[in-house]
């Protein structure tokens, strides 16, 4: 915060008016918003009733005053730039701190454990590319883990705290790079500030984009490459062009080895902007960008061919699921997967409201800025890319993991969307014909707030664990991680050979895979629901199940996310917990050995049943 305030102090050349910065007043307000969010978290852990109110009050306190201030400034905001920069960094830091306060003691999210495994293996073996059963693709994109391991080994911190530092540093780079990108493209500090703030409404910005996950290191590099590439398209001779190419080459390489999808989108973005430069009669700039995109293609191809050929097999199922859903919906059939949200009414209203606000605002924004921006290739690229936002509701409805895929898409799509909306908002509010500007600003603040709230209700964590829970919830993602599950996972790592074929419920699949280094099977629900010995025995043999994890809490709680197991055929149809007898039947299963008893969690060795080694 001190750094932010120091940065915001006016430089020598800036006139006196700029000293009327509201940053000193807004900084404690934003910090107070964070405090309210943390009060909400504390209430969630202790089960206090007003916790949800404190949480929402905190979210509004962080966002609304800042968005109001940025919208209320007149003109491009050049004089107010120190304040704008300070506010953008402040809000980015506040949201990151809020995520840290959600799970401040250890990792809690499934994907984080998967990347923890890759980092842990690097620490233990001192080598890259060890096998990771929980996320086999992760060791082949080791960028995040490499930096984290360097910090762990040089500082002595744990992987968790080193990861917090690395992802926090990446968040700073991302926030600065996004601001600078939009600043260079639009020429307006105010547009850049508003766009940066609007990006914080992305569904995963306040949670998954601040976690120990490889996207979160790659995304800042994507934006930094684009931000630097703007300099390649300048009309005047570029000083130190060779050095700029070296830097860009390094950044592209880092993106390629850190996250597959982000590097592909980076190449697409560079290609799009390059083609638009050619289209607009700027061949020099266009070919430079296409050369950079070509270098990216060469890097990606080399990586796919020589290091990570399994990437295609990893990404293919998601694309196939999406295309199947689209085809199914296009044929007029009711999609068998995806569909509408199943959340509380208020959440649903805000989620759809947030999407609707952007869906309606985008065409208005395009119409508004069509004349001022159409000759500027970078702005045109953002404008075209923003149209991909319309894929968000489509994916949400038709894809098997619709909500998740749609949310992941907004991580990228909101960069152009926020930029376009910010340009339009500034043009609209600063129009010489604008009357009653105060009312217009209020409307804009209200719309932005709906989008922000919709981002939270559509994003992560899900509504049942928006506030951290004080107890372990069955099928509860972050709140499903408890000491017993962790202990069982570590037991499996210590006592069982790697890669055993293991059946488990959702919570234990999340932990046993990365912590235990085990091959967690999906589609195992019939094993638990089956009541006949012959039926269960046949299932174990058919799938060569070597160990079965039974969590007796499944007989006491309904699954908060609707399904006890991955691919649960009874998903969202459970009206009572699983009968205890269906879980304890393994005690009587011929050939099964009860090898672990941790109270709630019991593990059976079923190799005697399946005859698997």
């Amino acid at each position, binding site marked *: 915060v001190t750094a932010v305030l120091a940065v915001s102090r006016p430089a020598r050349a800036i006139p006196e008016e700029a000293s009327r910065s509201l940053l000193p007043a807004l900084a404690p307000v934003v910090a107070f918003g964070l*405090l309210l969010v943390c009060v909400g978290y504390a209430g969630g852990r202790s089960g206090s009733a007003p916790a949800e109110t404190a949480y929402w009050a905190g979210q509004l306190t962080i966002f609304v005053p800042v968005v109001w201030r940025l919208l209320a400034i007149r003109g491009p905001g050049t004089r107010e730039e120190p304040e704008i920069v300070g506010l953008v960094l402040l809000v980015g830091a506040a949201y990151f701190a809020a995520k840290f306060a959600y799970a401040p003691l250890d990792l809690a999210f499934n994907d984080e454990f998967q990347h923890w495994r890759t980092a842990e293996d690097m620490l233990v073996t001192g080598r890259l590319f060890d096998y990771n059963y929980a996320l086999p693709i992760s060791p082949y994109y080791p960028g995040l883990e490499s930096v984290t391991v360097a910090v762990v080994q040089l500082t*002595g911190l744990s992987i968790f705290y080193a990861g917090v530092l690395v992802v926090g540093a990446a968040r700073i780079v991302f926030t600065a790079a996004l601001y600078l990108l939009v600043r260079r493209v639009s020429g307006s500090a105010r547009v850049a500030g508003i766009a940066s703030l609007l990006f914080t409404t992305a569904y995963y910005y306040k949670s998954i984009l601040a976690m120990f996950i490889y996207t979160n290191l790659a995304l800042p*590099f994507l934006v930094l490459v684009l931000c630097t590439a703007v300099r390649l398209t300048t009309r005047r001779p570029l000083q130190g062009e060779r050095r700029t190419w070296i830097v860009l080459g390094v950044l592209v390489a*880092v993106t390629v080895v850190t996250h597959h999808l982000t590097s592909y989108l980076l190449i697409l973005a560079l290609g799009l902007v390059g083609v638009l430069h050619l289209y607009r009669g700027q061949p020099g700039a266009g070919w430079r960008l296409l050369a950079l995109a070509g270098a990216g293609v060469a890097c990606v191809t080399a990586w796919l061919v020589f290091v990570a050929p399994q990437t295609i097999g990893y990404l293919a199922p998601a694309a196939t699921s999406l295309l199947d859903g689209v085809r199914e919906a296009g044929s007029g059939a009711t999609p068998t997967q995806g569909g509408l949200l199943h959340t509380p009414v208020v959440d649903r209203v805000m989620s759809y409201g947030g999407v609707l606000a952007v869906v309606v605002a985008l065409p208005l924004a395009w119409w508004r800025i069509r004349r001022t921006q159409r000759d500027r290739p970078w702005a045109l690229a953002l404008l075209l890319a923003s149209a991909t936002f319309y894929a968000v509701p489509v994916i949400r409805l038709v894809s098997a993991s619709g909500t998740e895929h749609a949310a992941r898409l907004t991580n990228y799509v909101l960069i152009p969307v926020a930029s376009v909306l910010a340009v339009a908002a500034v043009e609209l509010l600063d129009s010489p014909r604008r009357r009653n500007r105060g009312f217009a600003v209020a409307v804009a603040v209200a719309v932005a707030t709906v989008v922000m709230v919709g981002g939270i209700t559509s994003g992560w964590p899900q509504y049942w664990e928006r506030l951290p829970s004080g107890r372990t919830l069955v099928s509860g993602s972050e709140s499903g991680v408890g000491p017993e599950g962790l202990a069982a996972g570590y037991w499996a790592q210590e006592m069982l050979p790697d890669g055993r074929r293991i059946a488990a419920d959702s919570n234990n699949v999340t932990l046993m895979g990365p912590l235990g280094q085990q091959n967690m099977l999906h589609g195992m629900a019939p094993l638990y629901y089956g009541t006949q010995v012959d039926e269960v025995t046949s299932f174990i043999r058919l799938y060569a199940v070597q160990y079965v994890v039974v969590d007796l809490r499944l007989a006491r709680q309904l699954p908060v996310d609707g399904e006890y197991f991955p691919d649960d055929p009874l998903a969202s149809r459970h009206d009572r917990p699983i009968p205890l007898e269906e879980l304890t039947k393994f005690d009587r299963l011929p050939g099964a*050995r*009860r090898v672990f008893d*941790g109270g709630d969690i019991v593990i059976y060795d079923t190799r005697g049943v399946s005859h698997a080694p």
Partner: protein
Amino acid sequence: MLRKGLVRPQLDDPATVTVLGALAAALSLVPLGAGAVVGTIQGLVGAALVLLTGQALRLALRPSPAQDAGPTARMERWAWTIALSLATPVLGAFVLDVGPGGIARAGWAVLLGAVTVVAAGVAWFRGDRPGARPRLRLPGPRAVVTTAATVVILGLALTLGVNSAAAVPAASFTELSLVPRDTDAVTGVPVADPSGLALVTVRSSEDRDRGYHLELQNQAGVTVQVVALQLAPGESWEQDVRVPVSRAVLYRDPDREPYRQVWSGEP
């Protein structure tokens, strides 16, 4: 208005970065021992080395305006320093991976130290020198008050977040396991001639010291051995057992009902 104040450390001076980088790398190579103070020093030195690498690379590659004092340029310079600090280990890990020492503390110290010295040296030989020595601007009273208020509130928020998470009551439980040694623990390959050996383990995650009685039984359910245990939270006990032991039943004192049970034969 600028106020006279402390001389700002010249981290834009390649010579300073070279010296600090070499020092940090050297300290990272020296085993400093254990303890909280030493650990803190080690942490700070390690973090400084990572950041100095990025700073040296920024000075060498100059991807951002060098002398512009505006807030955007300043932010951009910091962003580049951090970005290059992150990028170096990403690519450096591939270098260490093919080296004989692998990915280890010494390797990082040497690699990052070398990159820092070379990059800062490039900037120095090119003739890059920082401009007029800027001075730290002391903030006015209003800024001090608001900064202090922000820091206090932020500190309260994070303290509340951490403390409320730490205060969640931990589950109290004990693990019992009986694992036949019929496969190689590393490869998972079945052992050719299983000797009937199994490992019994008891691990306490209870909220306090607990006493236990462990009964080891044969296939017929007859107790062949009783072990009395006293375990503190976090402690564990283990023992190899042989056939005919095929069942272990754990009682937590003073309870008479079985607390945990496992078996390696038919139920």
